[in-house]
């Protein structure tokens, strides 16, 4: 019987979905370990989640201030050593600001916050959230953000697409892409990307809010299940 993977969830000032992430990890059979932004200690966790929220109020730019938190040095070292790191929503924004992931997230095309259940299509199995999943699979998960429009310069975008770094795209229920389902106007409908090595992944949708059938769709279950087994496999 393998041990329960320990998944660290960082709380920055202004993090909001940190408890939700720990609860979801626990519901999926892992142990959610609270980590504090100003500590330089990952407590030996098997994977790190940077959760959603409004770190530092999202003032200036989303994620801009949080990326300087002491714990981010540890996260960078952990990531460089191949440790799995997942950024959800604000966590994704922080990882982009820290340049652990390519691209950037700007205000939604419609200039409004949007909270909605959306469909995303899995684009690659090469990430901690999609290891057991088949590209083409469609999952229903919520988004809730005001600044989730993924952008990158033209060359950078070519590289991201060329190297297969796109992990999720917003899509119609049948898996096709169109403008209507591109919930925030992201380039190429990009909802999540990974780094070159494949151990760091960020996404705007919230898998942690899609594991409990009592409160809605469960598209987050396979993502978090993948994270737990990915984290254990490394140990």
């Amino acid at each position, binding site marked *: 019987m393998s041990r329960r993977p320990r998944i660290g969830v960082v709380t920055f*000032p202004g993090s909001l979905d940190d*408890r939700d992430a720990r609860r979801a990890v626990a519901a999926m059979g892992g142990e959610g370990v609270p980590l504090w932004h100003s500590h330089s200690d990952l407590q030996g966790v098997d994977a790190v989640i940077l959760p959603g929220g*409004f770190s530092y*109020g*999202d003032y200036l730019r989303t994620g801009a201030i949080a990326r300087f938190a002491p714990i981010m040095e540890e996260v960078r070292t952990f990531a460089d050593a191949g440790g799995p790191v997942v950024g959800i929503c604000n966590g994704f924004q922080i990882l982009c600001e820290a340049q652990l992931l390519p691209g950037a997230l700007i205000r939604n095309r419609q200039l409004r*916050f*949007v909270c909605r259940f959306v469909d995303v299509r899995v684009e690659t199995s090469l990430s901690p959230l999609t290891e057991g999943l088949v590209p083409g699979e469609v999952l229903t998960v919520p988004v809730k953000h005001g600044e989730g429009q993924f952008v990158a310069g033209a060359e950078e975008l070519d590289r991201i697409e060329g190297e297969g770094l796109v992990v999720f795209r917003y899509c119609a229920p049948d898996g096709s892409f169109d403008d209507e389902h591109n919930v925030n106007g992201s380039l190429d409908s990009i909802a999540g990307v990974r780094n070159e090595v494949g151990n760091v992944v960020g996404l705007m949708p919230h898998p942690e*809010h899609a594991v409990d059938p*009592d*409160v809605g769709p469960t598209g987050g279950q396979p993502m978090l299940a993948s994270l737990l087994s990915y984290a254990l496999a490394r140990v």
Partner: protein
Amino acid sequence: MPSDQPLHRALGLTDEELEAIRTTLGREPNPNELAMYGVMWSEHCSYKSSKIYLRTLPTEGRHVLVGPGQDAGAIDIGDGLAVVFKMESHSHPSAIEPYQGAATGVGGIVRDIVAMGARPIALLDPLMFGPLTEERNRWLFEGVVAGIGGYGNCIGVPTVGGEVHFAEPHSTNPVINVMCVGVASADDLVTAAREVHEGSLMVLIGAATGRDGIGGVSVLASRTIEEDAAETRPSVQIGDPFAEKLLIEACLELVRRDLLEGLQDLGGAGLTCAASESTARSRMGSEIDLDVVPLRAPDLEIWEILTSESQERMLAIVSPDRLADVREVCTKWGLASSVIGKLVAGGGLAVRKGGEVVAQVPARSLADEGPIYERPARQPRGLDELEQDDPTFSTVKASPLDSFLTVLASPNVASKRWVWEQYDFLVQGGTVAGPGADAAIVRIEGALKALALSTDGKGRFGHLNPYLGAAHAVAEAARNVAVMGATPLAITNCMNFGNPERPEVMWQFAESVRGMADACSALETPVTGGNVSFYNESGDSSIWPTPVIGMLGLIEDHRLLVRPGFTGPGLVVYLLGETFPELGGSEFAEVVLGKVAGRAPALDFDSERALHRVLIEGSRKDLLASAHDCSEGGLAVALAESAITGNVGFAVALPGDVPWYVTLFAESASRAVVSTTLEAAAALEALAEEHHVPVFPLGETGGPRMVFDSLFEVTVEEARAVYEGTIPKLLAGEGRSAPGS
């Protein structure tokens, strides 16, 4: 401050009030003291015009832990848990700066909940605007919604419900109410009953004090808009939701670690209010030193420090031996904490600056002993004629289909998705049913128990008959909770009215309180708190008298909840409750007949309660596939919404002996559209009969179309396009008035 009138009048005090202050002090008040009385004795803070009426509300019940009189009411929901909830208005600031006005409204009510030691778990936002065909109304609407989202989303409290109404009187006077709900372990509640000690410290936590919002809420909300225009403008505040989030976490940690003797938010009337209320509540006196208050601008005047409404501040009462721990918690959350004073023997509030006493008054005279007025009240002229002009038997030229589509496309009826998609309604993970349902269902962490929450105001009915308007608001709020299977427990409220110095407004207020009191007694939902917002008028335009009710209900097992959408084909559809020829004040009368007139529908409390029993028992016995209450737009809209939400059509037969527009659009109370499986149908009918609730089989669900007898039919898709499209289209400029007009 204008110098062409005596200082006390410039501060909003009457000559008689000045006289009362002189009597209390036994001397002439100094300018600082006058400023303190000015804000504390303002309508907004003292409730001087409303108090005698509010006393008549029923406030007791077996679940009530804390009734009116504290930061928020509290209800016992069992298992050692208390639910704390309250509603407040921020209409006046929002009318001049919609984003910040609404945002700081959220911040204020959240701090009221935190001050009770409870974690805020839900927000609801009842809103009222003028028609979206006008540019200024769109600006207000978009700004207010963005502001509520901007603040609520950033502090991680889900906005799970609310309502939006549009009516011409709100063009100059939008109404912005926000309700916050929190949960605490009953032992943690920070109430007036806590023991405080002489020598305990007053610790100011959070933001520095600046010149923003000097006399803001209290002054803005105690005058009409045109008086405000020039002079009081800069009193809008800027919200800092990030600071609020830190303040919430720090305060809750202080409460959890039992480090506090008292906790109070700083809202309207700022430090003066917080200091005088905490002091009065402690039945002691206090000394505070303004030199210690962190300032954002070094040159703040004494009276400015005392009345500034700078946001994101709390005042804690701390025993000296706990101070170090308190400071440590504040530092952990990056917050400043300053010991600005202490409790002393006696009952005085002494304020020092630069070593000198700059104000010294009895704390209770500020907090509890404000003036009380019994203002003249008189029924408005023309009200009887307005009631006589009943639209129920007018000739209707529009076809049934056109009438239906017109009502469905009315912004009052149409989907509010454009609004609630801008709110994070999922954070904290407890939202079992969010916006779009009759009531929001928010589960208690780790339990099957869930709260059911709804807000309702009935401005049109109130305009015709303020007694009934208030009573209907209570009944509808309770019904919204009951259709989902929850038991209504208690209410909070926000009373939105015009200028109380006008006898007509005072009469409307008195009638509304009477209606609310009767309905709350009959439905056994005591009033645990609320807020009065007067002066919602400008020129000759006053808002309709609109008490907004915030209902708290409880469902023991959230898995039993019943949702409004038809869950599939082959279900039997029923109407529970009786339809009367009542089109007065209906949506149909307004948008199809162009009339806001007539008699508001009658309300029979026994029928209402009986309906609730059927709905609640029906849910417990699992007899209901769906349930949705009939309100604006009547039966037709209730059926359409059930179909659109469930994405399945229906065919219904309608009684032939009543005009179609009465059957389809009357807004008779105490009704619901429910559906059930064939197998459960007989049991449901029996249950209804047992409780003497009329039950009419209407037809069944299925297919892509909504078939209204032989009157008309329309596809669910087409209806959805109308229902969902209305507000986005109005905002995109379709149906706009020409620029410059």
